[in-house]
Protein backbone atom coordinates (compact mmCIF):
# COMPACT_ATOMS: atom_id res chain seq x y z
CA UNK A 1 0.00 0.00 0.00
CA UNK A 2 1.31 3.44 -0.85
CA UNK A 3 1.72 6.02 1.91
CA UNK A 4 -1.52 8.04 1.91
CA UNK A 5 -1.21 11.55 0.51
CA UNK A 6 -1.99 14.06 3.21
CA UNK A 7 -4.50 16.74 2.27
CA UNK A 8 -3.01 20.15 1.53
CA UNK A 9 -3.11 22.68 4.35
CA UNK A 10 -5.12 25.88 4.28
CA UNK A 11 -4.69 29.05 6.29
CA UNK A 12 -7.61 30.70 8.13
CA UNK A 13 -7.86 33.09 5.16
CA UNK A 14 -8.31 30.40 2.49
CA UNK A 15 -11.92 31.29 1.74
CA UNK A 16 -10.87 34.84 0.84
CA UNK A 17 -8.00 33.63 -1.36
CA UNK A 18 -10.22 31.14 -3.14
CA UNK A 19 -12.82 33.80 -3.87
CA UNK A 20 -10.41 36.50 -5.01
CA UNK A 21 -7.16 34.92 -6.08
CA UNK A 22 -5.40 32.17 -7.94
CA UNK A 23 -4.43 29.26 -5.69
CA UNK A 24 -1.24 27.27 -6.03
CA UNK A 25 0.43 24.65 -3.86
CA UNK A 26 3.42 25.88 -1.90
CA UNK A 27 5.16 23.69 0.69
CA UNK A 28 2.00 21.57 1.13
CA UNK A 29 -0.15 24.67 1.61
CA UNK A 30 -2.81 26.06 -0.70
CA UNK A 31 -1.74 29.66 -1.10
CA UNK A 32 -2.64 32.62 -3.35
CA UNK A 33 0.05 33.30 -5.97
CA UNK A 34 -1.79 36.44 -7.07
CA UNK A 35 -5.16 38.22 -6.94
CA UNK A 36 -5.20 40.87 -9.68
CA UNK A 37 -1.70 40.18 -10.99
CA UNK A 38 1.89 40.04 -9.76
CA UNK A 39 3.01 43.31 -11.34
CA UNK A 40 0.17 45.42 -9.96
CA UNK A 41 0.49 43.85 -6.51
CA UNK A 42 4.25 44.40 -6.50
CA UNK A 43 3.84 48.06 -7.48
CA UNK A 44 1.12 48.51 -4.84
CA UNK A 45 3.62 47.48 -2.17
CA UNK A 46 6.36 49.73 -3.55
CA UNK A 47 4.07 52.75 -3.98
CA UNK A 48 1.56 52.45 -1.14
CA UNK A 49 0.92 49.17 0.72
CA UNK A 50 0.03 45.53 0.17
CA UNK A 51 -1.35 42.84 2.48
CA UNK A 52 0.05 39.30 2.49
CA UNK A 53 -1.20 36.18 4.23
CA UNK A 54 1.93 34.38 5.41
CA UNK A 55 0.18 32.05 7.83
CA UNK A 56 1.82 29.10 6.10
CA UNK A 57 5.11 29.97 7.78
CA UNK A 58 6.05 27.79 10.73
CA UNK A 59 5.59 29.43 14.13
CA UNK A 60 7.09 28.02 17.29
CA UNK A 61 7.37 29.19 20.86
CA UNK A 62 10.50 28.29 22.81
CA UNK A 63 10.41 29.07 26.50
CA UNK A 64 11.99 28.11 29.80
CA UNK A 65 15.14 28.91 31.79
CA UNK A 66 17.39 27.34 29.12
CA UNK A 67 15.60 28.77 26.06
CA UNK A 68 17.85 31.79 25.54
CA UNK A 69 21.06 29.79 25.89
CA UNK A 70 19.73 27.14 23.53
CA UNK A 71 18.90 29.67 20.81
CA UNK A 72 22.28 31.26 21.33
CA UNK A 73 23.89 27.88 20.64
CA UNK A 74 21.69 26.99 17.67
CA UNK A 75 22.32 30.27 15.85
CA UNK A 76 25.50 32.24 14.99
CA UNK A 77 24.02 35.57 16.13
CA UNK A 78 23.94 37.21 19.52
CA UNK A 79 20.71 36.00 21.09
CA UNK A 80 22.08 36.22 24.62
CA UNK A 81 21.58 39.99 24.73
CA UNK A 82 18.37 40.21 22.63
CA UNK A 83 15.98 42.26 24.79
CA UNK A 84 12.26 41.63 25.21
CA UNK A 85 10.40 43.63 22.55
CA UNK A 86 13.12 43.09 19.96
CA UNK A 87 13.32 40.77 16.95
CA UNK A 88 16.33 39.40 15.12
CA UNK A 89 16.91 37.87 11.71
CA UNK A 90 19.18 34.86 12.06
CA UNK A 91 19.84 31.30 10.87
CA UNK A 92 19.95 27.79 12.26
CA UNK A 93 23.31 26.30 11.23
CA UNK A 94 24.49 22.71 10.91
CA UNK A 95 27.97 21.62 12.09
CA UNK A 96 29.44 22.36 8.62
CA UNK A 97 28.27 25.96 8.87
CA UNK A 98 25.52 25.35 6.32
CA UNK A 99 22.05 26.80 6.75
CA UNK A 100 19.29 24.59 8.14
CA UNK A 101 16.87 27.51 7.84
CA UNK A 102 16.72 31.28 8.13
CA UNK A 103 14.23 32.73 10.57
CA UNK A 104 13.24 35.65 12.75
CA UNK A 105 13.37 35.35 16.52
CA UNK A 106 11.04 37.57 18.55
CA UNK A 107 12.02 38.00 22.19
CA UNK A 108 8.84 38.08 24.29
CA UNK A 109 10.53 37.89 27.70
CA UNK A 110 13.82 36.89 29.27
CA UNK A 111 12.98 33.21 28.82
CA UNK A 112 10.29 33.34 26.15
CA UNK A 113 10.80 33.46 22.37
CA UNK A 114 8.72 33.26 19.24
CA UNK A 115 10.29 31.81 16.10
CA UNK A 116 9.00 32.29 12.56
CA UNK A 117 10.49 29.83 10.08
CA UNK A 118 10.05 28.97 6.41
CA UNK A 119 6.97 26.88 5.64
CA UNK A 120 9.01 24.40 3.61
CA UNK A 121 11.33 23.75 6.56
CA UNK A 122 8.82 23.80 9.41
CA UNK A 123 8.94 20.07 10.05
CA UNK A 124 12.72 19.89 9.66
CA UNK A 125 13.22 22.85 12.01
CA UNK A 126 10.84 21.39 14.58
CA UNK A 127 12.79 18.13 14.63
CA UNK A 128 16.10 19.99 14.73
CA UNK A 129 15.21 22.21 17.68
CA UNK A 130 13.46 19.36 19.49
CA UNK A 131 16.83 17.72 19.87
CA UNK A 132 17.74 20.39 22.42
CA UNK A 133 14.51 20.72 24.34
CA UNK A 134 13.75 19.47 27.84
CA UNK A 135 11.78 20.41 30.92
CA UNK A 136 13.76 23.67 31.11
CA UNK A 137 13.39 24.45 27.41
CA UNK A 138 9.96 23.77 25.96
CA UNK A 139 9.05 23.94 22.28
CA UNK A 140 5.42 24.56 21.35
CA UNK A 141 3.79 24.63 17.94
CA UNK A 142 1.82 27.80 17.20
CA UNK A 143 1.40 27.54 13.42
CA UNK A 144 -2.27 26.56 13.54
CA UNK A 145 -3.19 28.77 16.50
CA UNK A 146 -2.17 32.04 14.89
CA UNK A 147 -2.52 33.57 11.45
CA UNK A 148 0.32 35.83 10.30
CA UNK A 149 -0.45 38.87 8.16
CA UNK A 150 2.27 41.02 6.57
CA UNK A 151 1.33 44.59 5.71
CA UNK A 152 4.15 46.11 3.67
CA UNK A 153 4.78 49.41 1.92
CA UNK A 154 5.61 53.09 2.57
CA UNK A 155 2.02 53.82 3.71
CA UNK A 156 1.94 50.89 6.16
CA UNK A 157 1.89 53.06 9.26
CA UNK A 158 -1.19 55.02 8.25
CA UNK A 159 -2.96 51.90 7.01
CA UNK A 160 -2.38 50.19 10.35
CA UNK A 161 -3.69 53.22 12.24
CA UNK A 162 -7.00 53.17 10.35
CA UNK A 163 -7.75 49.68 11.66
CA UNK A 164 -5.94 49.49 14.98
CA UNK A 165 -6.62 53.10 16.01
CA UNK A 166 -3.13 53.46 17.43
CA UNK A 167 -0.03 55.09 16.03
CA UNK A 168 2.90 52.79 15.39
CA UNK A 169 5.15 55.73 14.49
CA UNK A 170 7.28 55.14 17.57
CA UNK A 171 7.90 51.46 16.87
CA UNK A 172 11.42 51.04 15.46
CA UNK A 173 12.35 48.49 12.83
CA UNK A 174 12.79 44.97 14.20
CA UNK A 175 10.93 45.71 17.38
CA UNK A 176 7.49 44.54 18.37
CA UNK A 177 4.66 45.56 20.63
CA UNK A 178 1.27 44.39 21.83
CA UNK A 179 -1.76 46.17 20.41
CA UNK A 180 -5.21 45.86 21.96
CA UNK A 181 -7.89 44.95 19.49
CA UNK A 182 -11.38 43.65 20.19
CA UNK A 183 -10.59 42.26 23.62
CA UNK A 184 -7.28 40.64 22.67
CA UNK A 185 -3.68 41.74 22.48
CA UNK A 186 -2.08 41.21 19.08
CA UNK A 187 1.68 41.00 18.66
CA UNK A 188 2.71 43.46 15.96
CA UNK A 189 6.30 43.60 14.74
CA UNK A 190 8.00 46.04 12.42
CA UNK A 191 9.51 43.32 10.26
CA UNK A 192 9.09 42.16 6.69
CA UNK A 193 10.56 40.61 3.58
CA UNK A 194 9.89 43.18 0.86
CA UNK A 195 12.52 45.87 1.34
CA UNK A 196 9.81 48.36 2.40
CA UNK A 197 8.62 49.58 5.77
CA UNK A 198 5.99 47.26 7.13
CA UNK A 199 4.44 45.25 9.91
CA UNK A 200 3.78 41.63 10.64
CA UNK A 201 0.65 40.95 12.66
CA UNK A 202 0.14 37.80 14.71
CA UNK A 203 -3.60 37.16 14.89
CA UNK A 204 -5.51 34.36 16.67
CA UNK A 205 -6.77 32.09 13.90
CA UNK A 206 -10.45 32.65 14.60
CA UNK A 207 -10.04 36.48 14.25
CA UNK A 208 -7.90 36.35 11.08
CA UNK A 209 -10.54 36.73 8.38
CA UNK A 210 -12.28 39.53 10.27
CA UNK A 211 -9.05 41.52 10.69
CA UNK A 212 -7.90 40.83 7.11
CA UNK A 213 -11.19 42.13 5.71
CA UNK A 214 -11.25 45.10 8.04
CA UNK A 215 -7.75 46.20 6.99
CA UNK A 216 -8.80 46.09 3.34
CA UNK A 217 -12.08 47.84 4.02
CA UNK A 218 -10.62 50.67 6.11
CA UNK A 219 -8.17 51.65 3.38
CA UNK A 220 -9.23 51.03 -0.21
CA UNK A 221 -5.70 51.73 -1.43
CA UNK A 222 -4.42 48.71 0.46
CA UNK A 223 -4.28 45.75 -1.90
CA UNK A 224 -4.07 42.02 -1.15
CA UNK A 225 -0.82 40.60 -2.53
CA UNK A 226 0.17 37.00 -3.18
CA UNK A 227 3.29 34.86 -3.11
CA UNK A 228 4.19 35.88 -6.65
CA UNK A 229 4.67 39.51 -5.65
CA UNK A 230 6.36 38.42 -2.41
CA UNK A 231 9.03 36.77 -4.53
CA UNK A 232 9.57 39.66 -6.96
CA UNK A 233 9.77 42.10 -4.03
CA UNK A 234 12.32 40.10 -2.02
CA UNK A 235 14.41 39.42 -5.13
CA UNK A 236 14.64 43.13 -5.96
CA UNK A 237 15.84 43.68 -2.38
CA UNK A 238 18.30 40.77 -2.79
CA UNK A 239 16.95 38.86 0.21
CA UNK A 240 17.91 35.20 0.04
CA UNK A 241 15.26 32.51 -0.22
CA UNK A 242 15.77 29.07 1.27
CA UNK A 243 16.01 26.44 -1.42
CA UNK A 244 17.45 29.01 -3.80
CA UNK A 245 20.27 31.06 -2.20
CA UNK A 246 20.29 29.17 1.09
CA UNK A 247 20.64 25.46 1.74
CA UNK A 248 22.48 23.04 3.99
CA UNK A 249 25.63 23.32 1.88
CA UNK A 250 25.72 27.12 1.90
CA UNK A 251 26.88 29.25 4.82
CA UNK A 252 25.80 32.80 5.72
CA UNK A 253 29.23 34.00 4.57
CA UNK A 254 28.69 32.96 0.94
CA UNK A 255 25.43 34.88 0.62
CA UNK A 256 26.97 38.04 2.02
CA UNK A 257 25.31 37.69 5.43
CA UNK A 258 28.47 37.56 7.54
CA UNK A 259 26.88 40.26 9.72
CA UNK A 260 24.61 37.53 11.13
CA UNK A 261 27.68 35.72 12.49
CA UNK A 262 29.18 36.89 15.77
CA UNK A 263 32.52 35.09 15.82
CA UNK A 264 33.33 36.44 19.27
CA UNK A 265 30.52 34.26 20.59
CA UNK A 266 32.32 31.39 22.25
CA UNK A 267 30.24 28.48 21.18
CA UNK A 268 27.59 27.86 18.54
CA UNK A 269 26.92 25.09 16.02
CA UNK A 270 29.04 25.64 12.94
CA UNK A 271 31.52 28.06 14.52
CA UNK A 272 34.60 25.97 13.77
CA UNK A 273 33.54 25.33 10.18
CA UNK A 274 32.84 29.02 9.58
CA UNK A 275 36.20 30.09 10.99
CA UNK A 276 37.84 27.62 8.62
CA UNK A 277 35.89 29.02 5.67
CA UNK A 278 36.90 32.52 6.62
CA UNK A 279 40.62 31.66 6.71
CA UNK A 280 40.63 29.36 3.65
CA UNK A 281 38.56 31.70 1.53
CA UNK A 282 34.95 31.18 0.49
CA UNK A 283 34.21 28.67 -2.28
CA UNK A 284 31.54 30.91 -3.84
CA UNK A 285 29.91 34.30 -3.45
CA UNK A 286 26.40 35.55 -4.28
CA UNK A 287 26.16 37.95 -7.21
CA UNK A 288 23.39 39.96 -8.86
CA UNK A 289 22.74 40.44 -12.56
CA UNK A 290 20.28 42.16 -14.85
CA UNK A 291 19.44 40.90 -18.30
CA UNK A 292 20.28 43.11 -21.27
CA UNK A 293 17.80 41.19 -23.40
CA UNK A 294 14.18 40.59 -22.60
CA UNK A 295 14.40 36.97 -21.55
CA UNK A 296 13.78 35.80 -17.98
CA UNK A 297 16.47 33.64 -16.34
CA UNK A 298 15.13 30.95 -14.01
CA UNK A 299 16.66 28.83 -11.25
CA UNK A 300 19.11 26.29 -12.67
CA UNK A 301 19.90 28.09 -15.96
CA UNK A 302 23.64 28.08 -16.74
CA UNK A 303 25.75 31.23 -16.80
CA UNK A 304 29.00 31.88 -18.66
CA UNK A 305 31.64 34.58 -18.69
CA UNK A 306 33.39 34.47 -22.08
CA UNK A 307 32.66 30.74 -22.37
CA UNK A 308 33.86 30.05 -18.82
CA UNK A 309 31.05 28.33 -16.89
CA UNK A 310 30.32 30.27 -13.70
CA UNK A 311 27.48 28.25 -12.28
CA UNK A 312 23.72 28.47 -12.34
CA UNK A 313 21.00 30.97 -11.56
CA UNK A 314 19.62 30.60 -8.02
CA UNK A 315 16.63 32.94 -8.48
CA UNK A 316 15.37 34.87 -11.50
CA UNK A 317 12.31 36.90 -12.35
CA UNK A 318 11.07 39.98 -14.13
CA UNK A 319 11.51 43.08 -11.97
CA UNK A 320 8.42 45.30 -12.12
CA UNK A 321 10.39 48.20 -10.62
CA UNK A 322 13.37 48.00 -13.00
CA UNK A 323 11.30 46.80 -16.00
CA UNK A 324 13.87 44.15 -16.80
CA UNK A 325 14.70 40.56 -15.85
CA UNK A 326 16.94 40.20 -12.78
CA UNK A 327 18.67 37.24 -11.20
CA UNK A 328 20.96 36.05 -8.41
CA UNK A 329 23.68 33.45 -8.81
CA UNK A 330 26.77 32.09 -7.07
CA UNK A 331 30.07 32.73 -8.75
CA UNK A 332 33.53 31.44 -7.89
CA UNK A 333 35.13 34.25 -5.84
CA UNK A 334 36.86 37.09 -7.72
CA UNK A 335 35.56 35.81 -11.05
CA UNK A 336 32.97 38.52 -11.67
CA UNK A 337 32.70 42.23 -10.97
CA UNK A 338 29.90 44.77 -11.43
CA UNK A 339 29.79 45.76 -15.10
CA UNK A 340 30.92 42.38 -16.46
CA UNK A 341 28.90 41.01 -19.36
CA UNK A 342 27.72 37.43 -18.97
CA UNK A 343 25.69 35.05 -21.06
CA UNK A 344 22.84 32.95 -19.72
CA UNK A 345 21.58 29.82 -21.47
CA UNK A 346 17.86 30.49 -21.53
CA UNK A 347 16.04 27.52 -22.97
CA UNK A 348 18.75 26.82 -25.51
CA UNK A 349 19.49 30.41 -26.54
CA UNK A 350 22.45 32.39 -25.16
CA UNK A 351 21.25 35.75 -23.79
CA UNK A 352 23.27 38.71 -22.53
CA UNK A 353 23.25 39.90 -18.94
CA UNK A 354 25.32 42.25 -16.81
CA UNK A 355 26.62 41.94 -13.26
CA UNK A 356 25.42 44.72 -10.96
CA UNK A 357 25.96 45.69 -7.32
CA UNK A 358 23.41 44.47 -4.81
CA UNK A 359 20.67 45.32 -4.09
CA UNK A 360 18.63 45.93 -7.23
CA UNK A 361 16.32 48.14 -5.20
CA UNK A 362 16.67 50.14 -2.02
CA UNK A 363 13.74 52.05 -0.58
CA UNK A 364 13.91 55.80 -0.68
CA UNK A 365 13.41 56.82 2.92
CA UNK A 366 14.91 54.43 5.44
CA UNK A 367 12.22 55.03 8.02
CA UNK A 368 12.52 53.22 11.30
CA UNK A 369 15.72 51.40 10.31
CA UNK A 370 17.57 50.05 13.33
Amino acid at each position, binding site marked *: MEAPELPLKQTPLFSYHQAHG*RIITFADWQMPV*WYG*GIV*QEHLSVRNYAGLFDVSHMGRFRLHGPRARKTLDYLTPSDVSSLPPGHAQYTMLLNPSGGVVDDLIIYCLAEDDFFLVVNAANAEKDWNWISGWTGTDCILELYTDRLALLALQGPASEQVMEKTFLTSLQGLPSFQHTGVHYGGETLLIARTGYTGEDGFEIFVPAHRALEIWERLLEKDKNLKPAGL*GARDTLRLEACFPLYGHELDEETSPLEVGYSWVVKFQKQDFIGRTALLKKKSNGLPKSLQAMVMLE*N*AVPRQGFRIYKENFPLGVITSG*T*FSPTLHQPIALFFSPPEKVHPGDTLTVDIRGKMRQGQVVKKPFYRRRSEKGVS
Partner: protein
Amino acid sequence: MFPEDLRYSETHEWVRLEGGLGVIGITYYAQEQLGDVVHVELPPLDTSLKKGDIFGTIESVKASSDLYAPVSGTVVEVNGDLSEEPERVNQDPYGKGWMIVVEMEYPEELDHLLTASAYEKLVSG
Protein backbone atom coordinates in the same frame (compact mmCIF):
# COMPACT_ATOMS: atom_id res chain seq x y z
CA MET B 1 -14.37 33.78 -22.72
CA PHE B 2 -14.13 31.53 -25.79
CA PRO B 3 -15.54 33.28 -28.87
CA GLU B 4 -17.64 31.06 -31.14
CA ASP B 5 -16.02 32.23 -34.38
CA LEU B 6 -12.57 30.94 -33.39
CA ARG B 7 -10.98 27.55 -33.51
CA TYR B 8 -8.77 26.30 -30.69
CA SER B 9 -5.77 24.02 -30.25
CA GLU B 10 -5.22 21.71 -27.29
CA THR B 11 -2.15 23.81 -26.50
CA HIS B 12 -4.33 26.88 -25.98
CA GLU B 13 -3.78 28.82 -29.18
CA TRP B 14 -6.70 30.18 -31.22
CA VAL B 15 -7.15 30.87 -34.94
CA ARG B 16 -9.54 33.34 -36.57
CA LEU B 17 -10.16 33.21 -40.29
CA GLU B 18 -9.92 36.71 -41.75
CA GLY B 19 -10.09 37.11 -45.49
CA GLY B 20 -8.40 33.81 -46.17
CA LEU B 21 -5.65 34.43 -43.60
CA GLY B 22 -5.34 32.91 -40.14
CA VAL B 23 -4.90 35.30 -37.17
CA ILE B 24 -3.32 33.50 -34.23
CA GLY B 25 -3.02 34.20 -30.52
CA ILE B 26 -3.39 32.48 -27.13
CA THR B 27 -6.64 31.97 -25.27
CA TYR B 28 -8.10 33.69 -22.23
CA TYR B 29 -7.42 30.50 -20.27
CA ALA B 30 -3.74 30.49 -21.31
CA GLN B 31 -3.11 34.11 -20.29
CA GLU B 32 -4.92 33.51 -17.02
CA GLN B 33 -2.65 30.56 -16.23
CA LEU B 34 0.49 32.49 -17.17
CA GLY B 35 -0.24 35.62 -15.20
CA ASP B 36 1.37 38.95 -16.11
CA VAL B 37 3.00 38.57 -19.54
CA VAL B 38 6.32 40.40 -19.72
CA HIS B 39 7.74 39.26 -23.05
CA VAL B 40 6.55 37.64 -26.26
CA GLU B 41 9.05 36.37 -28.80
CA LEU B 42 7.64 36.01 -32.30
CA PRO B 43 9.07 34.66 -35.57
CA PRO B 44 10.32 36.80 -38.44
CA LEU B 45 8.08 37.47 -41.45
CA ASP B 46 8.04 34.76 -44.11
CA THR B 47 8.75 32.01 -41.59
CA SER B 48 7.29 28.77 -42.85
CA LEU B 49 5.38 26.86 -40.18
CA LYS B 50 3.96 23.39 -40.03
CA LYS B 51 1.07 22.67 -37.66
CA GLY B 52 2.58 21.90 -34.24
CA ASP B 53 5.83 23.81 -34.84
CA ILE B 54 7.02 26.14 -32.08
CA PHE B 55 6.58 29.66 -33.48
CA GLY B 56 7.67 31.63 -30.43
CA THR B 57 7.92 31.96 -26.68
CA ILE B 58 5.81 33.74 -24.12
CA GLU B 59 7.19 34.76 -20.74
CA SER B 60 5.30 35.85 -17.68
CA VAL B 61 6.76 36.87 -14.34
CA LYS B 62 6.38 33.31 -13.11
CA ALA B 63 6.71 31.10 -16.19
CA SER B 64 7.89 30.61 -19.75
CA SER B 65 5.94 28.76 -22.39
CA ASP B 66 6.39 27.76 -26.02
CA LEU B 67 3.84 28.84 -28.62
CA TYR B 68 2.66 26.15 -31.05
CA ALA B 69 1.35 26.81 -34.55
CA PRO B 70 -2.26 25.58 -34.68
CA VAL B 71 -2.16 25.55 -38.50
CA SER B 72 0.48 25.34 -41.23
CA GLY B 73 1.40 28.41 -43.25
CA THR B 74 3.71 31.35 -43.88
CA VAL B 75 3.96 34.24 -41.45
CA VAL B 76 2.75 37.40 -43.24
CA GLU B 77 2.24 39.68 -40.23
CA VAL B 78 3.65 39.94 -36.70
CA ASN B 79 2.19 42.06 -33.89
CA GLY B 80 5.00 44.51 -33.20
CA ASP B 81 2.98 46.26 -30.45
CA LEU B 82 3.57 43.31 -28.15
CA SER B 83 7.23 44.18 -27.66
CA GLU B 84 6.28 47.48 -25.99
CA GLU B 85 3.02 46.30 -24.47
CA PRO B 86 3.14 42.55 -23.77
CA GLU B 87 0.30 43.05 -21.28
CA ARG B 88 -2.08 43.29 -24.24
CA VAL B 89 -2.03 39.50 -24.23
CA ASN B 90 -3.58 39.54 -20.75
CA GLN B 91 -5.92 42.46 -21.36
CA ASP B 92 -7.28 41.50 -24.78
CA PRO B 93 -6.12 37.99 -25.78
CA TYR B 94 -8.46 37.72 -28.80
CA GLY B 95 -8.13 41.31 -30.00
CA LYS B 96 -5.12 43.57 -29.40
CA GLY B 97 -3.18 40.58 -28.03
CA TRP B 98 -3.05 38.84 -31.45
CA MET B 99 0.39 37.47 -32.25
CA ILE B 100 0.87 36.44 -35.87
CA VAL B 101 -1.05 36.19 -39.12
CA VAL B 102 -0.36 33.26 -41.45
CA GLU B 103 -1.24 32.52 -45.02
CA MET B 104 -2.62 29.06 -44.47
CA GLU B 105 -1.19 26.17 -46.44
CA TYR B 106 -4.07 23.79 -45.69
CA PRO B 107 -7.26 25.69 -44.70
CA GLU B 108 -8.91 22.31 -43.96
CA GLU B 109 -6.69 22.09 -40.87
CA LEU B 110 -9.20 24.43 -39.24
CA ASP B 111 -11.76 21.62 -39.22
CA HIS B 112 -9.44 19.52 -37.08
CA LEU B 113 -9.16 22.16 -34.37
CA LEU B 114 -11.55 22.40 -31.41
CA THR B 115 -14.75 24.44 -31.46
CA ALA B 116 -15.40 26.92 -28.65
CA SER B 117 -17.55 24.45 -26.73
CA ALA B 118 -15.06 21.61 -27.15
CA TYR B 119 -12.24 23.84 -25.94
CA GLU B 120 -14.30 25.02 -23.00
CA LYS B 121 -14.87 21.38 -22.05
CA LEU B 122 -11.14 20.77 -22.27
CA VAL B 123 -10.17 23.57 -19.91
CA SER B 124 -12.96 23.14 -17.39
CA GLY B 125 -12.55 19.37 -17.11
